[in-house]
């Protein structure tokens, strides 16, 4: 990955307008597509578009930790659950609280917050938990972190199921106000990508990458390994919590089962397909996996190939995704982007276009 940095440095630096144009292009594209879908898309397409945005937040923030620090968390869906439940409890209308959650403590039973404060508190709650568990857990290395965070996920689930006064236990939590719109989702998606990008280019981000590549060497030049991991974990948990809150206010009725193994695996698939450590990889991996799994899910219901009738095979799409995942792990472990980024400023550098059409000189 240093290779790409040095290569871009040797070329002349892009002018400011080229850089702005490079950032504006995807934003403009996003805006156009979103407007177009709001205007012309079917309800189904709009739904997929929102889910896609939510998954982009989840995967990008998971990448912010797993990709940048090289330590693998399997517990991020726990943060998502915290964000979803905290925000849903805070925004639940008072009369619904009286019927759905009669055993809430008084101070909560009489609180009803707006959407933005609820989202932020949901995210902060996730961060708080992340900092508490991160301090011991992130000292570990390799798959020990994966295991400890998986244990964290199980613990969150047990608490959700048993904290009945707050969560209705394993029953469905319903009545969440439908606040999440496509604009909320993509505003946060843009914020998430921006934050990830800023973190990557900050001293903290450099420290994360340094300790990922070589712990001993990073330490010897003064990188505080635990601290850099804690930063990544905290920020990542916040954004994951936010995604959970947005998800909750979109899905409206959910139970602890939504925040478990299946969701964990689906987010990790997107991350690995795109390539860990690459922000554009996270976005691209999410788009590919979401679209592919939607296509497969539609085929699951059965279809006809000319005279051959393919029967409905529910669960087949998950099997195919898992096989795809294994194939990627075996043949292209670094994912599609392999830790590189797509740099759209290049679109505005004349050399780039010329190089596309120039014949290779022997």
């Amino acid at each position: 990955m240093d290779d790409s940095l040095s290569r871009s440095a040797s070329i002349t630096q892009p002018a400011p307008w080229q850089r702005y144009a490079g950032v504006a292009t995807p934003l403009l594209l996003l805006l156009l597509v979103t407007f177009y879908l709001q205007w012309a898309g079917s309800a189904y397409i709009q739904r997929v578009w929102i889910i896609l945005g939510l998954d982009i937040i989840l995967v990008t923030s998971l990448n912010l930790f797993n990709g940048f620090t090289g330590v693998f968390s399997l517990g991020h869906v726990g943060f998502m659950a915290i964000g979803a439940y905290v925000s849903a409890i805070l925004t639940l209308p008072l009369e619904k609280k009286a019927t759905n959650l009669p055993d809430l403590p008084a101070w909560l039973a009489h609180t009803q917050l707006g959407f933005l404060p609820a989202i932020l508190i949901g995210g902060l709650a996730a961060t708080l938990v992340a900092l508490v568990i991160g301090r011991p857990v992130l000292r570990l290395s390799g798959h020990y972190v994966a295991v400890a965070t998986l244990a964290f996920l199980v613990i969150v689930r047990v608490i959700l199921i048993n904290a009945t006064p707050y969560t209705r236990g394993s029953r469905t939590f319903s009545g969440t106000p439908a606040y999440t719109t496509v604009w909320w989702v993509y505003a946060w998606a843009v914020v998430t990508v921006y934050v990830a990008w800023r973190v990557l280019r900050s001293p903290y981000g450099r420290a994360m990458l340094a300790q990922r590549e070589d712990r001993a060497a990073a330490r010897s030049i003064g990188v505080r390994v635990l601290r850099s991991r804690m930063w990544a974990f905290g920020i990542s948990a916040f954004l994951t919590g936010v995604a959970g809150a947005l998800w909750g206010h979109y899905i409206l009725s959910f139970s602890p089962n939504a925040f478990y193994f299946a969701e964990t695996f689906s987010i990790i698939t997107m991350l690995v397909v795109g390539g860990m450590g690459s922000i554009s990889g996270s976005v691209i991996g999410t788009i590919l996996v979401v679209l592919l799994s939607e296509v497969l899910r539609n085929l699951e219901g059965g279809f006809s190939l000319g005279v051959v009738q393919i029967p409905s095979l529910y669960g087949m799409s998950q099997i195919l995704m898992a096989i795809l995942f294994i194939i990627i792990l075996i043949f292209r472990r670094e994912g599609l982007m392999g830790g590189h980024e797509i740099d759209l400023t290049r679109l505005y550098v004349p050399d780039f276009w010329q190089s596309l059409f120039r014949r290779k000189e022997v």
Partner: protein
Amino acid sequence: MSFFEYGTQQLINALSIGSLYALMAIGLAMVFSILRLINFAHGDLMMVASYTALFLLIGGSPFLGAAIAAVVIAAIAGLAMERVAYRPIRGAPDVAMLLTSFAVTIILENAAVLTVGARSRAFPAPPFLSTVFTLGNLTVSSVNVVAIITTAILLVLLTLFVRRTDTGISMRAAAEDLVAAQLMGININRVIAYAFAIGSGLAGVAGLLCAAKVGKVDPFMGFSPVLKAFIAAVIGGFGTIPGAVVGGYVLGFLEIFLQATLPGQSSAYRDAFVFGILILVLLIRPNGILGVQEREEI
């Protein structure tokens, strides 16, 4: 009920649940010690074995035949898993292997849902596995006793195998140092295949015992036990067979102890405590009680 009787009752419960965890943890530890692969799909072998037995029993086969067939099928499934998914990724970073095993779990569970359906089915356990007898004030279900005895026998056989046979010794050598073992002329693929076959067979036995104990089978029955077995393996020091056994029984006792002592409401949080203990063990003693592995910490 006297204190002594109460103690005996809980002892039997703890030993029987500990036996199940030990059987599962052995397979995890054997594979981990050689490949550094945490095989999450190990739990699904329980499901494979119990469904095999279920269908044979429904077809009218005697229990012993069905049980042997189920264990053999589980071993074959474990071998297939290794050949198809784990061999190509051998030597990859630990996390990549762990993720592969997750994918294998997803494939197996969904395949089970596709073929036999997601809803649970009653498991027709034979009388010797489903009677409850009383001794004074004690109520003991026979499956618990069978679980304890079967596990004890299997542990003795496994110990003999690992200590006395060439394959067992090669297996220990491979666990110690895979490359060196290979240089000494040990056929690594064969050793790994043995580890998978034996571990999977034991998981199959655990699956049958679990199905008889719970009385039903479903495609996701292996998920919770494999997590527990995993804790057991970590407690015992991941990667040694004695450690896995000790860890299994420690976990069994711990669970029963927590269940008996946690006051009313909070006993529902038992699993949260157990997994909290996992994190604690990882922090304080990452090599477990009997572990000999290198300490990996930042």
